[in-house]
């Protein structure tokens, strides 16, 4: 007996296929519109020329009378225009290479140990203990994330010396590794930018780096603090702007977050979440506008888009450092964090979209927008397909919820967000440096090819959403010397929804 549902199913399949082909041909047509225009024009010209014949063409050219002054003027105009063009073209900024800090085994904190410590530290507050257990079970962190030695104590023993010790350890290791990878000499660093949000001693961390490596006295050094997890991309933006003004220069950017002084020792539930997620990490990058670096640079910086929602009070207060009723300082995360993040992302995409999306997507978006405004507001808003614009996505591993939210909003597949999820699992939330661990993951998996475009998105307190677009400059061969070296073969791992303790 024939199944009544079968024909419907194959009909549906055909419809879907037809729609897909339609969309593909539309995209191809719009994106290569100029070519489609040029082909008939070239054809017409070629036919005309063929008709006239070669001798006639030569005769026509010879009949032009050349006045020497006219020729010189035209030449000067040409040279003037090309000079203006080349001078006003923005300098290309290249990411020569970068290195991520890999914590030693003595900093390892397995999942169960962290739970145990939390229970012991919060034992006078069983409700807070339960809350923290629930967060940890769903956090998406793995068994090998790292905390600095001071945080291994029950209760943690943060002091200034330990914080400086951690800063020196992570920053110097990352920079030493960068020097080894790129062959950079300390005296060749022209610009130094260090960003660390929650630890800002005097002298600054950038001064600490200048002191350690004996950098030049005329170095342009900057220290960005208090700018949250998106500060890494802010530093890149600053480096890019400086490299427009300074010709032939190297810029070193160090992104990190120092955990030691920021472990929340109280029991307010809204402030316990950062303890569960933030872990040790750092990244050091070498950016350059030197022409000779072009050949060996890994990436070219294409766009940086910064979106600040701080003018909205709700967004401003959503990640807020404050004292709890007991006077202990911690970071309060408000309940509408995800909503605000989605809004910030939308703003950022609105600016980013026209810069990166192919014409087909932009037209579709425009038509749907016009349609919704004029014809029928009930039309679904068209979400541009960013997978057409980028091959790889690096979403700041702020937490499982952030990655889930972005995957949903941008309609990304599991493979697109794999780098983010696996970085969260292996290293935890390393704040501004997490984007670089994710990029290293993609490279270690051998997925990065020349010409691939990467989109890095970071969120941070303020509330800010910053993006950077990179284009891969050369083929990157595995294995690469990076933080994933010894464990890349174990990844990707399946991360359960709730970890059974």
């Amino acid at each position, binding site marked *: 007996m024939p199944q009544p549902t079968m024909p419907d199913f194959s009909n549906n399949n055909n419809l879907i296929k037809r729609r897909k082909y339609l969309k593909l041909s539309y995209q191809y047509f719009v994106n290569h519109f100029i070519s489609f225009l040029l082909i008939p024009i070239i054809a017409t010209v070629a036919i005309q020329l063929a008709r006239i014949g070669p001798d006639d063409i030569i005769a026509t050219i010879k009949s032009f009378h050349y006045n020497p002054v006219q020729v010189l003027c035209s030449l000067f105009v040409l040279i003037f225009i090309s000079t203006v063009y080349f001078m006003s073209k923005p300098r290309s900024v290249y990411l020569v290479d970068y290195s991520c800090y890999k914590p030693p085994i*003595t900093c390892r904190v397995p999942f169960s140990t962290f739970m145990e410590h939390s229970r012991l530290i919060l034992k006078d507050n069983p409700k807070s203990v339960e809350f923290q257990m629930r967060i940890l079970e769903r956090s998406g962190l793995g068994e090998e994330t790292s905390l600095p030695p001071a945080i291994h104590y029950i209760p943690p023993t943060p002091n200034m010396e330990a914080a400086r010790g951690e800063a020196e350890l992570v920053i110097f290791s990352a920079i030493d590794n960068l020097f080894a990878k790129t062959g950079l000499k300390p005296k060749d660093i022209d610009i130094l930018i260090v960003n660390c949000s929650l630890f800002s001693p005097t002298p600054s961390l950038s001064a600490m780096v200048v002191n350690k490596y004996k950098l030049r006295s005329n170095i342009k050094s900057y220290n960005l603090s208090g700018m949250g997890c998106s500060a890494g991309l802010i530093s890149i933006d600053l480096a890019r702007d400086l490299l427009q003004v300074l010709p032939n220069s190297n810029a070193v950017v160090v992104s990190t977050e120092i955990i030691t002084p920021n472990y929340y020792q109280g029991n307010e539930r809204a402030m316990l979440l950062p303890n569960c997620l933030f872990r040790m990490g750092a990244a050091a990058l070498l950016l350059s506008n030197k022409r000779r670096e072009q050949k060996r640079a890994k990436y070219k910086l294409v766009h940086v888009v910064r979106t600040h929602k701080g003018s909205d009070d709700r967004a401003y207060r959503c990640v807020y450092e404050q004292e709890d009723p007991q006077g202990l300082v911690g970071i309060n995360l408000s309940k509408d964090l995800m909503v605000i993040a989605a809004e910030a992302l939308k703003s950022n995409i609105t600016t980013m979209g026209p810069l990166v999306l192919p014409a087909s997507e932009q037209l579709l978006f425009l038509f749907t927008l016009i349609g919704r405004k004029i014809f029928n507001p009930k039309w679904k808003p068209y979400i541009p397909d960013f997978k057409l614009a980028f091959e790889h996505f690096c979403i700041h591993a702020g937490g499982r919820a952030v990655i889930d939210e972005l995957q949903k909003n941008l309609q990304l597949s599991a493979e697109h967000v794999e780098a983010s999820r696996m970085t969260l699992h292996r290293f935890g939330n390393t704040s501004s440096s997490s984007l670089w661990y994710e990029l290293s993951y993609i490279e270690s998996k051998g997925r990065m090819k020349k010409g691939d475009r990467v989109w890095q998105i970071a969120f941070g307190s303020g509330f800010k959403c910053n993006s950077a677009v990179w284009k891969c400059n050369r083929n990157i061969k595995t294995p690469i010397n990076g933080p994933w070296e010894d464990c890349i073969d174990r990844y990707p791992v399946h991360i359960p929804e709730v970890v059974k303790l």
Partner: protein
Amino acid sequence: MLKYLSPQNCLSKGKKMVSSKIQNSIYNISISTVVPGLMSGHDAVQELSAMDLAMKLHYLRIVYYFKTPTFDGFTILKIKETMFNWLNHTYITCGRFRRADSGRPFIKCNDSGVRVIEAKCRLSLDEWLETKDDSKHELLVSNQVLGPDLAYSPLILVQLTDFKCGGKSVGVSWAHVLGDAFSAVGFINLWAQAMIHSYPAQPLTMAQQHNWACDLQNPKPNPYPLSVKRVDPVGDLWSTTSNFKMETASFYVSTTELTRLQAQICGKKVDQKVPEFECICAVIWQCLAKVRNGSGPKAVTICRNDVKTRDKGIITNESQTIGLVKTDISAQDYKPFELVSLIMNKAEDERMKIKEAMDRDNELPDFLIYGANLTFVDLSDAPFYEMEVRGQKPVYVNCYIDNVGEEGVVLVLPSPKGCSDGRMVSVTLPENQMAEFKSVLNEDWAIA
């Protein structure tokens, strides 16, 4: 800081209090955790044998004393680094307890790690060792027990105490459920190996299980063996309360004294040779019988190393014989030589009976083995002094078993200079019997 070693978790109520002067000399206590540096346990399940569960209420507390300059220049971070490397090979000891649906405990090897306690002492090592108070060693090792939060209780705690002169003590608390003293010492010696980057080829494992067929048909089960004392259910807090405060005293028996004792026991039988351990057992048994004035002990338990079944790289409770010696009349009425022959020839290995008693019903009873009767444990062959740090042996090792029954426990330990140099004897008795026992030992046998 001390509140994190939760008070209800400690055995302070069952022990004689240390003098406050000594207690105040320990300061600056901080607690942290050291885990395997690399993923080692992978959440594997380690089942426990009946013998392991029978021993679960006991704890071994071992203190190693090192003179300066053994640990000179060894910062706490460097020491912890050696521990991170060491624990990669001992993942079972880094796990935590869970209960199966049947209620039977097992170990989940989740890399939770060992607890590390750092402390300082105001005295120098020599001053400390010369102090007369024998209970001082308890301050240098944790007195924590497993539970009440069983899933979050470490099985092993290591206390590192710095003395004023630069000497250091390492106090290891070992849950007996993991294995006997030989297993514990083997585990600790792996750390000494790790310090010189010498690692075992295989991680430490537990002995294979032998499944004994349970005689479920038997309507009238055998009574519990005499070597065992069943206590009221302890639930998730693995310790017992006792009516008596227990006190531990250690004393040294030199080779000359041993020879004299042997001669005293053998008397005219010149061709007979009495081994050192049995000699000490008989002497102490008789002394205690005198102290208790005829009310016992009528049965003693003898625990010895079962060399035949002991394998390297294994932690186990199966390789220690638990022999029971019964007498019908008080030990006072025996000649010492007769006691020795009883111990040597009439000790019945009760391990099978204990296992059968444990597995018999689904209830999983809670037992005390050490101290159920007067218990003698022969640890003279245990390699305590092989724990070499930078080529230096410990100057002294103190060992006692915590949470024991009221009948008392005697440990025969090697002396610092080796077995040829006599023995250390550690005696744990109820507080009210200790003074009399010491005087009887002195009067009758001339041992101080």
